């Protein structure tokens, strides 16, 4: 119970923020916020030693009778993500305290969104129910939207926020469709139960659709090609947000989803191919274009895209293990381990790099790498952290990135060995692509670190005079950079407590317990192909870096028109402008036109339905007989209606209308409805008085010289409605399929309701609700009329309004 409720701790705490921010404004709000992720990280850390004892489940019943509940399911994978979310969260909040000025910024908003995100993200990784997973998933999109648009006065922030929202929510909706198909096929919404039924689900005819739809959700969220375009624009968010959401946690939700569902879908070759291909392409694309960027955070954004692709590719390769015999002993076992390992490493080095980019921005006033340079001597600590982070990302020892990069190359090489699903044809290409991407990764890492901190100093031209950041701002990146180094030396400790339990969750078919995962990571194990590849990467990468200035302009050859961003912009414009054009075609703003559509449509559907349902089966039996009196009233009614038309003066029209009303009252008399007759008579009298009073002030009954086509069109529609109503009345008269429900009223009116006039008893008793609401409507009409007459602007106010 505590476990599941703790998911909501951040958002509940967030409710206190406005008060804390207002009452205790001397203290930076971040200090209070810091408590939450810190407490949570301690809580989740307590699970680490005992996670081998199996998943921990805790359910909170929301509406028990409807079986609405929220379940927190902590296994190795969820725990690892929860720790990342709360751990990086703690560091980011700490960093933000120094990054965001407590006087200038709206801190309560910022931290509210951040805490909301924390709850959402914890919900995503701990939910066992597909729908609650989806809801939390969309909540991360929303909080990401709010955080990107945090500086909402900047155009670019709003644009970036909207872009991320459009793309991730599109993916989320697709994913929801996939979830529904999945739950339909599996008969349950619980992910655990679905995994248990995976063999029946695989037989579903919609199996491939589920894969495609769910992967769309994962790929948009995790910024895979070609959906990655939102991530660079999301860099408009404050840097703590970029470090937290857009590199360490939210973008890994897609990774989480793929990892979580691997046991379910990896049976399918489509799954493996989609995930591997998208990962490899994204890896290459991101690293290749990272070198093009000139904004520090832009480089990091593309590198994040590329690294996410890398993890994705490894997860795809992890699925292959299901298709080979005893994979535990072979090269195929590495991919899942490598994916999780790199996920952790990426969070550490990329988090620190983002924080450094933020520090550089904060201290120099610019993030443009063309203006930066030579900061090493001014900001030695920042430089050290940046160097550690970059070299780790480049995959060099003695940093954790080296280890996971080696494992990555291993798992890519494993694809070469795989025979099924056409991998024998395409498999050998993949390690080459990975290798080339690694070279570009190496290049952009050096590019990032060198041109910021070394090279020719243009320090005087910077907007601000740079100096080392305050120590508080440096704490978080220092902790992360320390981890980068520490993990290199103790990879197997990390492996035992964090990675292997997570691998067990990804590949439950292969292992019984996390200790069965027999992978031992070491920095050096002979001159393997992996090591040779790394050496190649370093050599060629270094050459490319040295010649960078010569070939970097080649990027400008790519025409802007062909970019994915341009495609997105055009689609948005299409949706915006063209849909407006289309709706303006018929949304004229004139009620008359809308009424015309409605009347025509009613005519068409009613007559079509009558036709379709064989409603033209008229019978003229069982009708009341026609008397002379009735004929006279009919004649009067028709004549007075015609008079209304022909009337040249208001008075004639009103009196004719009154005559129509009185003849209707006469019909009520003839057809044994005394209550109606009485009411109609009185109403008609009052109405005529009312019309006369109002028309006293109104202009002549003009026809405004309506043109002939206008009249013809109106007449045709009116004729259609008239014919439709006549047909409807005849049809209803001819086919009385059900007896009137009034018999009940007739039987019980005296015994149950104590009355004799059935109509009145229906009004005040049987259908009293109608009457109650009717008099309410009547009162509202009265008040509205009173308001229209009594509340009006004086001449003076009107003048001033017009001038505005």
């Amino acid at each position, binding site marked *: 119970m505590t476990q599941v409720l703790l998911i909501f701790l951040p958002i509940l705490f967030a409710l206190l923020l406005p008060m804390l921010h207002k009452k205790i404004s001397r203290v930076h709000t971040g200090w209070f916020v810091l408590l939450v992720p810190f407490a949570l990280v301690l809580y989740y850390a307590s699970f680490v030693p005992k996670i081998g004892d199996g998943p921990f489940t805790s359910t909170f019943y929301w509406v028990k009778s409807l079986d609405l509940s929220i379940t927190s399911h902590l296994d190795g994978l969820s725990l690892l993500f929860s720790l990342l979310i709360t751990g990086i969260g703690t560091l980011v909040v700490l960093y933000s305290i120094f990054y965001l000025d407590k006087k200038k910024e709206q801190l309560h908003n910022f931290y509210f969104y951040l805490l909301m995100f924390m709850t959402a993200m914890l919900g995503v990784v701990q939910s066992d129910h597909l729908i609650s997973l989806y809801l939390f998933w969309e909540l991360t999109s929303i909080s990401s939207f709010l955080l990107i648009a945090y500086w909402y006065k900047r155009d670019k922030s709003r644009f970036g926020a909207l872009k991320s929202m459009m793309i991730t929510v599109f993916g989320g909706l697709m994913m929801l469709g996939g979830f529904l198909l999945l739950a339909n096929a599996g008969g349950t919404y619980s992910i655990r139960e679905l995994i248990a039924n995976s063999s029946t689900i695989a037989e579903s005819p919609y199996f491939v659709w589920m894969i495609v739809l769910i992967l769309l959700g994962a790929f948009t969220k995790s910024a895979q090609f070609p959906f990655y375009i939102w991530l660079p624009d999301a860099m408009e968010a404050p840097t703590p947000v970029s470090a937290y959401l857009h590199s360490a946690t939210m973008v890994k939700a897609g990774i989480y989803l793929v990892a979580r569902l691997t046991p379910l879908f990896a049976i399918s070759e489509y799954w493996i191919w989609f995930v591997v291909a998208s990962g490899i392409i994204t890896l290459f694309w991101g690293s290749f274009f990272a070198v093009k960027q000139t904004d520090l955070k832009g480089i990091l954004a593309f590198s994040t895209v590329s690294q996410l692709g890398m993890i994705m590719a490894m997860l795809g390769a992890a699925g292959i293990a299901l298709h080979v015999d005893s994979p535990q002993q072979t090269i195929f076992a590495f991919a899942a381990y490598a994916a999780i390992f790199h996920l952790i490493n990426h969070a550490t080095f990329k988090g620190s790099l983002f924080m450094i980019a933020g520090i550089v921005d904060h201290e120099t006033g610019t993030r443009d790498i063309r203006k930066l340079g030579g900061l090493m001597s001014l900001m030695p600590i920042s430089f050290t952290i940046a160097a550690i982070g970059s070299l780790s990302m480049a995959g060099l020892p003695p940093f954790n990135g080296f280890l996971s990069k080696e494992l990555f190359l291993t798992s890519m090489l494993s694809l070469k060995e795989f025979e099924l699903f056409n991998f024998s044809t395409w498999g050998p290409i993949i390690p080459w692509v990975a290798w080339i991407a690694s070279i570009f990764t190496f290049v952009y890492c050096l590019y990032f670190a060198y041109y910021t901190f070394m090279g020719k100093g243009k320090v005087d031209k910077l907007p601000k005079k740079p100096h080392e950041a305050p120590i508080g701002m440096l704490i978080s990146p220092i902790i992360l950079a320390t981890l980068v180094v520490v993990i290199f030396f103790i990879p197997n400790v990390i492996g035992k407590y964090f990675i292997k339990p997570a691998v067990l969750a990804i590949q439950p078919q292969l292992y019984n317990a996390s200790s069965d995962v027999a992978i031992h990571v070491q920095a050096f194990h002979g001159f393997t192909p992996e090591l040779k590849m790394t050496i190649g990467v370093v050599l060629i990468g270094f050459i490319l870096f040295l010649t960078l200035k010569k070939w970097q302009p080649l990027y400008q050859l790519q025409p802007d028109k062909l970019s994915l961003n341009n495609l997105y912009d055009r689609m948005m414009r299409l949706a915006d402008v063209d849909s407006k054009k289309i709706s303006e075609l018929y949304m004229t703003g004139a009620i008359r036109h809308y009424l015309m559509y409605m009347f025509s449509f009613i005519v068409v559907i009613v007559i079509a339905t009558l036709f379709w349902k064989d409603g033209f089966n008229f019978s003229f039996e069982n009708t009341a007989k026609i008397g002379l009196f009735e004929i006279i009233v009919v004649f009067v009614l028709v004549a007075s209606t015609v008079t209304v038309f022909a009337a040249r003066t208001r008075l004639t029209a009103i009196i004719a209308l009154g005559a129509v009303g009185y003849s209707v009252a006469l019909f009520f008399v003839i057809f044994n409805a005394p*209550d109606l007759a009485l009411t109609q008579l009185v109403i008609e009298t009052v109405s005529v008085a009312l019309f006369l009073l109002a028309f006293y002030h109104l202009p002549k009954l003009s026809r405004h010289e309506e043109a002939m086509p206008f009249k013809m069109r109106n007449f045709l529609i009116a004729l259609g409605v008239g014919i439709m109503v006549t047909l409807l009345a005849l049809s209803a008269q001819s086919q009385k399929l059900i007896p009137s429900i009034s018999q009940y009223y007739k039987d019980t009116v005296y015994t149950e309701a*104590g009355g004799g006039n059935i109509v009145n*008893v229906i009004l*005040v008793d049987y259908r009293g609700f109608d*009457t109650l609401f009717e008099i309410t409507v009547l009162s509202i009409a*009265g008040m509205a009329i009173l308001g229209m007459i009594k509340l009006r602007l004086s001449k003076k106010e009107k003048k001033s309004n017009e001038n505005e």
Partner: protein
Amino acid sequence: MKMNNVILKTTVQVSFFIIFLFSIHIFLAGHFAPGGGFVGGLLTASALVLLLLTYDIKTVQKLLPINYMMMTAVGLALALGTASISVFFGDAFFKHYFSHFEIPLLGNTELHTAMLFDSGVYLVVVGVTMIIIQSIGGDE
């Protein structure tokens, strides 16, 4: 709106009371014979309209100083209140109660909570109709 019509004024003095009393009768009889809150209310209102047409608004306001907005509000409250009485007795919303009583002069009479509801309807109908007529008629 001022008319100086002696014949109208003289007849209205009599006919107003006739119409008014008739409307009360119609209203009270509603449960067993044609009539009820709607018709009764409208008839009362039409009697008042007749007064308004004959004399002007100010005179009528002096004669019958009624706040019709208040009347409408009271009517709505009465109707809603009657409908909710049953809730306090553990019955469904809108359940009516009735019983027969021996009342002096009237004899055996049925008393019914629906009557209270209908009074609410009556008040609302009179109130709203008069609000409408007075607003338009009183406007310059």
